[in-house]
């Protein structure tokens, strides 16, 4: 169909032109008048006090006001702790910073009283009074199953039995040797000095010259190669005849039929082999399970000795503190005791996963560890 004849579009299409702006202008006039004159009586006021009872809103506000913090809830049962609701009405809010000054108290006593109130042990009460049982006992997440204090083996006593002492020494030696072997077996660091002969200053320039020549030659070779390839790439194309096309189609069908026959053969074969297949599947499953179990057990064993990897640096255990054979005197007075217990405690914190190991904790402090000379 052809296009419609152009009828009058005054109302529909040219709405932009045909809108009357009288009401807008009127409004603007009135508003400017109001502003200049300072308010008019005819309009209703734009701000007013809402005295209507909006029950829904009030309910919501009250509900949230009644909510209490979880940590306060825990202490609810202790009568000495007052619960402060999460929000208060304006009337209840008092000035935070006013400090109640008792009559007759001067500046210094006020200060001391304030200090005492703020002191750490201001409320030394029985925290676990009455054996109150909290209804919701949270399941505590323990970072590690390693005990806080691990008592050392018998060989680390100040006057050990010889067999136990040998055991403990063997363990310490094994640890040290492990570290040494790790270092030896690791990759060698890049040497700072490379082996080779000294080159004179004159020859240095010639070295660079040689390199440049080679580069130019290579570029030429590459350009020539690409030209030859381009030429070879354009093969001769012949027109495909109907005969060729039919031949191709027949071949395709053949291949399809053969593939299907093969499939059916394989299916029957596999059905015959079914029990054997089932057996192999079972074995594989078992192997998988065993591997999985081994991994789980290994992981659990590892967790008993050191924490999971929590940060950038690995956990480095400290060496076993055991007396060397020379130092074994049997006397408490002459005991060469360990004076780095701080380190041991910090290491224990790291071992339990409470502190993330840092760069410094791995570093060995020279001549403070008992060196194993054997």
């Amino acid at each position, binding site marked *: 169909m052809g296009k419609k004849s152009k009828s009058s579009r005054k109302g529909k299409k040219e709405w932009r032109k045909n809108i009357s702006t009288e009401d807008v202008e009127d409004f603007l006039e009135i508003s400017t008048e109001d502003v200049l004159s300072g308010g008019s009586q005819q309009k209703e006021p734009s701000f007013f006090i809402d005295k209507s009872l909006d029950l829904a809103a009030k309910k919501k506000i009250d509900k949230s006001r009644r909510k209490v913090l979880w940590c306060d809830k825990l202490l609810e049962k202790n009568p000495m702790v007052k619960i402060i609701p999460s929000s208060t009405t304006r009337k209840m809010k008092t000035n935070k910073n006013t400090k109640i000054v008792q009559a007759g108290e001067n500046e210094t006593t006020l200060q001391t009283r304030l200090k005492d109130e703020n002191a750490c042990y201001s409320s030394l*009460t*029985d925290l676990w009074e009455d054996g109150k049982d909290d209804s919701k006992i949270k399941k505590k997440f323990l970072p590690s199953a390693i005990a806080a*204090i691990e008592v050392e083996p018998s060989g680390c006593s100040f006057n*050990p039995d010889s067999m136990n002492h040998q055991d403990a020494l063997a363990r310490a030696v094994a640890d040290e040797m492990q570290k040494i072997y790790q270092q030896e077996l690791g990759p060698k660091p890049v040497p700072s000095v490379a082996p080779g002969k000294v080159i004179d200053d004159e020859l240095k320039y010639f070295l660079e010259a040689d390199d440049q020549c080679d580069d130019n030659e290579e570029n030429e070779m590459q350009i020539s190669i690409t030209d030859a390839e381009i030429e070879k790439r354009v093969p001769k194309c012949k027109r495909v005849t109907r005969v060729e096309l039919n031949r191709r189609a027949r071949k395709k069908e053949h291949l399809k039929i053969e593939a299907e026959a093969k499939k059916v053969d394989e299916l029957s074969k596999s059905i015959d082999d079914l029990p054997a297949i089932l057996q192999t599947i079972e074995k594989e499953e078992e192997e998988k399970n065993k591997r999985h179990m081994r991994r789980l057990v290994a992981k*659990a064993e590892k967790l008993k000795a050191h924490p999971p990897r929590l940060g950038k640096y690995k956990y480095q255990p400290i060496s076993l503190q055991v007396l060397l054979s020379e130092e074994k005197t049997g*006397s408490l007075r002459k005991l060469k005791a360990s004076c780095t217990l701080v380190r041991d405690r910090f290491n224990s914190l790291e071992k339990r996963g409470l502190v993330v190991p840092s760069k410094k904790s791995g570093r060995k402090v020279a001549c403070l560890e008992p060196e194993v000379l054997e």
Partner: protein
Amino acid sequence: MPKHYRPAGKKKEGNVAKYVTRSQAVKGLQVTLPVFRKLCILKGVFPREPRKKVKGNHHSYYHMKDILFLKHEPLLEKLRDIRSYDKKIKKAVSKKNKDLAGRLLTRKPSYTLDRMIRERYPKFVDALRDLDDCLSLVHLFAALPAVDSTANGEKIPINRVHNCRRLSYEWQAYISRTHKLRKTFVSVKGIYYQAVVKGQTITWLTPHALQQVLSEVDYRILLTFLEFYEALLGFVNFKLYHSINVKYPPILDPQLEALAADLYALTRYFDARSARLGSLTPGSDQMELQQLHSNELGSLVQISEVANEDEEDEETRECKNLFKNMIFFLSPEVPRESLLFVISAFGGRLSWDGDGAPFDETDQSISYQVVDRPTLGRKFLTREYIQPQWVFDCVNARIILPTEKYMVGCICPPHLSPFVDNETEGHVPEYAEAIERLKAAQRKEVLPLPGSGKEDFDDPHSLAGIADRAEAIEVAKKRKEMAMLEKQHFDELSKEVKGYQIADIALDNEPMQDDDECLDQDLRQLEEDESRRAEALMGRKPRNILKAMRIGIQKKQDATQRLKKRQKQIKESQMLN
């Protein structure tokens, strides 16, 4: 129209939603890193290892719930207030307004850790369970030197060290007064103690009384832990002291306190409270404060037997009576504090050489003098001179060992660890066997002597008197023989009844022996079946744990077998030479 709008990068489920890195957490909480660290330590929030570390292997991950838990902690606001207050002080100082700075410093806000402790340990038993680490750290800091700046610029304030000392003494005084100490072990690292309080076993480590070296560790972290543990130990002490009707914090004799004889003063305080005497009269002389590192003076415990007899269980009574009526005197070179604690915990009385000591060296009633010198000058004949190891070994063995081996100048027998169960380890040191024999000897003397022939092997009471393993095995063998003979007799009787000839009975002896073996085998089979059944009922995880346990036990047994072989070889080679 999209159903639920979620911002482009935000995930809802999985490891990404559950775990955040430390920097994300710090940004989310809007605090600085040191404040975050402090808050985590105080609240007990620690990083975890997620299955998949989404942001990389080099971050530490916190669980989202933990961070939300931190978010609603009122202490967070308090710490922020403190920070802004510090800024005010800094500003005043930099504007050279000393007056304002001074005034601000006096009104600095602080926080208390009561609610934190209550949250983390809702019951008293939970607090006791976590007391190991707390005690060790407090005892360690009690022995540290107070410095103004350690390696990384941290300050160890002197009042904290004093506080730690006070708390550690209060704890020790409680334990020794209520005789709850069970084991001690002196190792190279320090002295391990184990006590049983309200059914909970508590083990802690005290350093040797040496100058402890300040290693290069992060002291801010340690001090935060210490802050928490100090508060915890304070409350625990409060509760424990109230349970024995003693006022806490205790008011000590100022003279003794000045002499740094805190532990002695505490025990005197205990006595005063329990015997309901009046308040102690303060001494007239004011002695100078000794250095922090002087050996602490011990105490003579004039224990009045007013402790609650009902609450004591058998072990406590046993421990209380170990050193009963024994009076010790300590020479200056022995570890005074440790011995004071141990001896008074086991019912003994002691004194030392110094001011404020209960009695003198020349007192006639002293039964044991503890010395650690190679030779001795003057000797009293009425007392025995022993090395300090004797005290520790007696405490571990719970009997009074003979003192010949511990005399002055001798090399003591090895100090064994009571924390190691020798039987499970397999290797029993010779001295441990000697101690066992002594214990058995003591117990046999107490029990009535068994009759010569009419020993009833089925009576469990008589078997209880035999402590040695070898003897028990003999008893079991005898029992088997008797059972076999009985069976034989019964069979003979039954065969006679059925009319067999006596000649056939003789032939039947052999199968009877086989029967006996069969019996054994049957029993073993039954046992195995039972255990296998139990195993099959277990889940996969406990079964594998059992497997791992068995492998571990097997390894240990192999190790002990090897050791025994070597011992034999050594002995043989020695005999040949």
